[in-house]
């Protein structure tokens, strides 16, 4: 039993070492390419002054990023994931101006310069660290082959062969050589994965986002979402103001006028007064109806009264398509987040009704490990594109305020799957009875 376990462990260690050696070979290749690309990039940058570089640099940079991408991949396979730090490049505009602009955005991205430094260092580090595992493996195998008898063949052809510090000229010496090569083999098996992991850490220090760029991208995100929030809020307030002004306010004025007229005609023309009073009552009902719609748009009553789960059930009930709702949200979220999720789901469902041509939708909402996750699946025709519709963009922007994300998968022919994720805490047990 123990033997089996030992064999299993040894087998796994050897496999890992072999993989690491293979990655080492890839690293040697990247080292060679690093040298070439370093020289080309440096020249391209220098030639910007001559004009040629303006065309050359935007052509070389994608190659550099492909190479660093390969290094990130190798590192990820060594268990060191590295995030991509590049700033988004603006779309290439036609003409010379576009190239100049692209050059500028490449040159102002700090990641470009860190890449360049990586290329220079990797020429050496990648070569050395990449070659080490292979060298160890080859050397130990060579020793084993020689010490099992090849040394005799060698001696007959008149060459006195040394392995390590042993001259292979007799069987005892050959045995010693075999021991040394076994030791080298064991050393290779133990060290190879660590060598490539070492390179991965080296790569991360230069190819990953620097602390500064992490903070910078966070700040960019915050200022973007902040201005989004301000815009959305201002638009909402304007809409509410307009609705109140054109709706309830106008109705109340009309009611007041009708009541005034009724008052004047109460004695002289009771019939006309009665008609006016009925009109006034009807106008009151319309005003109330408008206010109800407005309130629903600001904060739906069921959401306020029952929370997210029942509010979603309520929109499902009102939807013209079959909606299956499953939920597991054991508590209430903070009101703004709850409202954002509600309106996002409501909008998604609206989209399904309007565009998807679906007859069945499922909505699953659950809260796990500090993350609220809502999945909306429909059996419609698919082909929804978040970059086209303003609705989906709007949902994304609203959720981004809460660091939430919307992921959409909608191949032509369906089905469409929308996944909404929003980090949030639940703060009290549910109060609803259902």
């Amino acid at each position, binding site marked *: 039993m123990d033997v089996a376990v030992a064999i299993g462990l040894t087998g796994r260690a050897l496999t890992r070492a072999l993989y690491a050696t293979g990655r080492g070979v890839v690293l040697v290749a990247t080292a060679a390419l690093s040298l070439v690309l370093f020289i080309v990039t440096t020249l391209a940058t220098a030639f910007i002054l001559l004009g040629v570089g303006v065309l050359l640099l935007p052509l070389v940079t994608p190659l550099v990023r492909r190479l660093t991408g390969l290094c990130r991949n190798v590192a990820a396979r060594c268990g060191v994931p590295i995030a991509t730090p590049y700033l988004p490049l603006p779309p290439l505009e036609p003409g010379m101006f576009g190239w100049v602009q692209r050059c500028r955005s490449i040159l102002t991205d700090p990641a470009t310069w860190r890449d360049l430094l990586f290329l220079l260092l990797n020429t050496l580090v990648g070569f050395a660290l990449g070659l080490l595992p292979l060298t160890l493996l080859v050397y130990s195998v060579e020793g084993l082959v020689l010490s099992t008898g090849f040394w005799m063949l060698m001696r007959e052809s008149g060459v006195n062969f040394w392995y390590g510090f042993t001259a292979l000229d007799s069987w005892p010496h050959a045995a010693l050589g075999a021991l040394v090569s076994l030791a080298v083999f064991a050393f290779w098996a133990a060290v190879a994965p660590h060598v490539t992991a070492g390179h991965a850490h080296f790569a991360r220090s230069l190819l990953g986002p620097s602390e500064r760029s992490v903070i910078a991208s966070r700040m960019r995100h915050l200022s973007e979402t902040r201005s989004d929030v301000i815009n959305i809020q201002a638009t909402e307030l304007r809409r509410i103001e307009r609705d109140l002004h054109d709706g309830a306010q106008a109705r109340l004025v009309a009611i007041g006028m009708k009541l005034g007229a009724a008052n004047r005609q109460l004695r002289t023309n009771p019939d006309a007064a009665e008609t006016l009073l009925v009109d006034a*009552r009807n106008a*009151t*009902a319309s005003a*109330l*109806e408008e206010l*109800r719609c407005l*309130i*629903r748009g600001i904060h739906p*009553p*069921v959401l*306020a*009264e*029952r929370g997210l789960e*029942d509010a979603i*059930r*309520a929109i499902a*009930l*009102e*939807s*013209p398509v*079959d909606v299956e709702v499953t939920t597991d949200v054991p508590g209430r979220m903070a009101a703004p987040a709850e409202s954002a999720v509600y309106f996002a789901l409501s909008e998604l469902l609206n989209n399904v009704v309007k565009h998807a041509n679906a007859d069945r939708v499922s909505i699953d909402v659950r809260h796990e490990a500090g993350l609220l996750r809502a999945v909306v699946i429909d059996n419609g025709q698919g082909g929804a594109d978040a970059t086209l519709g303003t609705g989906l963009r709007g949902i994304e922007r609203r959720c981004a305020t809460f660091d939430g994300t919307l992921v959409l998968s909608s191949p032509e022919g369906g089905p469409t799957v929308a996944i909404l994720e929003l980090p949030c805490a639940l703060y009290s047990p549910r*109060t*609803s*009875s*259902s």
Partner: protein
Amino acid sequence: MVQLLESYDFEIVAAVDNGPALLDALVTIRPEVAVVDVRLPPTFTDEGIQAALEARRRCPGLPILVLSQHVEQLYAKELLADASGGIGYLLKDRVLNSDQFVDAIRRVAGGGTAMDPQVISQLLAGRSRREPLSTLTPREREVLKLMAEGCSNVAIAQRLIVSQGAIAKYTTSIFTKLDLAPADDSNRRVLAVLAYLNGTRADVS
């Protein structure tokens, strides 16, 4: 509200202003009919609905008319779920027309239903193409709509300006199409409304 009801010769046995007191009053006094607001202290959420549901769990069939600033199909479904009648769910706006409102109260007290036309029209808009409701003719649908609002055959006949016999024929046809076994007529009416709300075949208990 108390004044309005007294002017229509109702005797007010209790008037309470919060959720727990309401539930207490409902189950101890067991009024002939109760008029309940959805939002009440202490939390101003849905105490009225919760109290009404709980009271009817304890005293099945206790007639309750729920009033609200807004009507929700979700709540309507919950209120109708026990299928025992004597339930109403209206917008507060309906109080403006006091005759119709008092009529609704009396209907609920008599074991009937009074659903707000808004609930019904939302349902019509939402689920009209679903089985088995989709098998109903437009006229039958109209009759079912009025039935759901709580109108009697006489009232429906008056509204649609047809004979009572015709209405009886429509209702029978509706019951058959919705697969409701012949039983106590008023119970069947509630079940028909339920079928309407669920958009599926109502379970006949």
